[in-house]
């Protein structure tokens, strides 16, 4: 603002932005702070808009999980599917799992959806593109809070009592969101140019769901399937958050810490890459 303090100077050159990482990151931080009001507005607008034209409103955040849980429960009771022993009643187990899985998928789609939403504005007015992603992350967190209230009711009904570990659950969940966002951030710019990516995502996530211990516990032993499930990056934080929420114990805390740290570094790198890539997308986005 001209009235307060010295004038900010911006230089646009042909130098790749990554040559000056410090200046770039500093500008990103400054602008994210400057646009904080927009972040807040976008979060509240998206939350309200999602359920504005519906009678059940926020219940929709939870209904898909209930439906999936009931479906799998019935299938298990009829012995159509066989899953190992779960530490809490199966139906509650699946509900927690699908709520977390949905958060993972929504976070993965977050950067792509945000870019779609804001394409019209990004092509006309300068906006630091990373802030629309930050808004998405915020939206995921708030949505999860709504879901967790409903999970609490389910826990009461089925007599599931979380232990002290519930205190780390928010951190684990955050890392789950971060991890998915990083994947989304990498896909978004390419996906906006080539729509093949966007079309491919539902196909891949459908398959991915089967390889993630959402409706079944982490398999024991060393078969191909068990190995795939354990290598699956979506597994780590999804399982850990579920364990923390349902009174279990964290199976591998050091490993989680390492992956968590990597994810956070990954987020910073991906945000920078996203920011650098967006002008190439905007140039080709048309009117």
């Amino acid at each position: 603002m001209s009235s307060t303090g010295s004038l900010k100077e911006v230089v646009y050159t042909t130098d790749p932005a990554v040559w000056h990482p410090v200046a770039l990151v500093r500008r990103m931080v400054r602008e994210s702070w400057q646009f904080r009001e927009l972040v807040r507005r976008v979060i509240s607008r998206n939350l309200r808009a999602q359920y504005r034209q519906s009678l059940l409103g926020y219940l929709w955040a939870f209904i898909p999980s209930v439906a999936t849980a009931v479906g799998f429960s019935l299938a298990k009771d009829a012995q159509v599917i066989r899953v190992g022993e779960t530490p809490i009643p199966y139906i509650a187990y699946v509900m927690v799992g699908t709520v977390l899985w949905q958060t993972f998928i929504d976070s993965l789609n977050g950067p792509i959806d945000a870019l779609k939403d804001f394409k019209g504005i990004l092509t006309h007015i300068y906006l630091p593109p990373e802030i629309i992603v930050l808004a998405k992350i915020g939206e995921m967190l708030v949505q999860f809070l709504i879901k967790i209230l409903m999970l609490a009711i389910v826990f009461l009904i089925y007599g599931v009592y979380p232990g002290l570990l519930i205190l780390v659950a928010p951190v684990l969940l955050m890392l789950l969101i971060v991890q998915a966002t990083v994947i989304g951030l990498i896909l978004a710019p390419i996906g906006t140019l080539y729509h093949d990516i966007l079309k491919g995502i539902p196909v891949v996530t459908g398959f991915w769901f089967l390889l993630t211990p959402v409706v079944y516990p982490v398999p024991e032993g060393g078969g191909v399937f068990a190995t795939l499930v354990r290598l699956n990056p979506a597994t780590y934080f999804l399982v850990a958050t579920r364990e923390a929420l349902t009174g279990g114990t964290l199976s591998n805390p050091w490993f989680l810490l390492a992956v968590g740290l990597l994810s956070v570094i990954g987020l910073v790198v991906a945000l920078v890459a996203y920011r650098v890539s967006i002008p190439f997308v905007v140039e080709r986005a048309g009117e």
Partner: protein
Amino acid sequence: MSEPASIELKAFDGPVLVEGVSKKFCRQLKTSLAYGIRDMSRDLIGLTGKGDTLRAGEFWSLDDVSFRLEKGESMGLVGTNGAGKTTLLRVLSGLFRPDKGSVRIRGRLAPLIALGAGFRPVLSGRENIYVNLSILGMPLQEIEARFNDIVAFSELEEAIDAPLQTYSSGMAARLGFSCAIHTEPDILLIDEVLGVGDIRFRTKCYRRLADLRRRGTAFLLVSHSPSAILASCDRCIYLERGKIAEMGEASHVLRRYEEDLRRIPTHVPGKAGIKAAAAAVSADGFKVEEIYFSDADGKKVESPVCGDPVSFHIRCSSLARFSGVTATIIMREAFGDLQTILTLSSKDVPLTLYEGKNDIVLTLPFLGLQSGPYTMKIGLTTGTLEHIAAIESFRFTVERNQKTQHSLFYQPCEWKVTSGPDAEVPVLTQPAAKGSM
């Protein structure tokens, strides 16, 4: 984003410094996408792209553009469509990265390009002010501090709580403009948006802009209207196919721009004879075969000359006889506002067209049109207003005539001095000299 040493050496205190900026684009979508992915990946791993050369299918949308904008200076920007004006504004806003050169911006830049960015029809005017200003990067306290001023300036106090969809387009534009100028920018990019609201509000906008300018805001004003630029800009840039064709004092640059506009060749098909059948809509059995101009000697001419006698011919063939036909010819500017310059109608002299060939001739003792490109709309109607033939747009160019300068049209005239004892007392005064511009 960064400050390479090469330009740090040069003095820079003004709000905008553009040095040798070029930007290229590719019209082929698939190729453009492939280049996009390639450039994006090179940029991410820190390789400089081959920004300075064109690859297959690319063209320069901006080519070596340099200029600076001082504090409180107002610069006009003109050029035909596709000359690169919008690209330049987007490079300045930081939406597009230059392929060559550099841009330095000091201070807050506000685009009056997309007025009311992010406006949502279901939200009230009040909420939309918050949305719009937050998109322009303003924190909440600052929005609240300016809120009353914005509403007062837009004169929408009574409607501010009504949803935006109940606003007229003029009201919405007023709100958008009011938001944009209250960001207290150091640099304002204005793209043809001052056509908002009624004349009174427009005047108010211009006053406000002049105010900002006195306080040091620099402007870049894109407009198709030379008068708007002349009224508010000292200097002007004329872009032509991405290059700066002329830059300097506004009236000088605009004169050159207008001259060039007149010179742009209109598509005049054929040699002397001008076929117009393509665009013609005709009644059954009626056909416009040819339309053309002829000079004093009756020779076909492609482009009539300003001030010379000229005849305009519509040659047609008919299978039936039409009486009481009215021919109407409307001539418009080929560029700009497509303003109607001249309408000629044979209403008072009903024409009769016979079976077979007809040649409808309109004779003009002097062609009054100033040199430049025009489009002509031709209609033939019967007494009952039935269309026999209509030609939507026939384009032609009027050639320059050395005698007529600084005029909107050609005025035939005669000068004479009478003196001495034999001086006649004029009964009628001679027509005045040419209309002035």
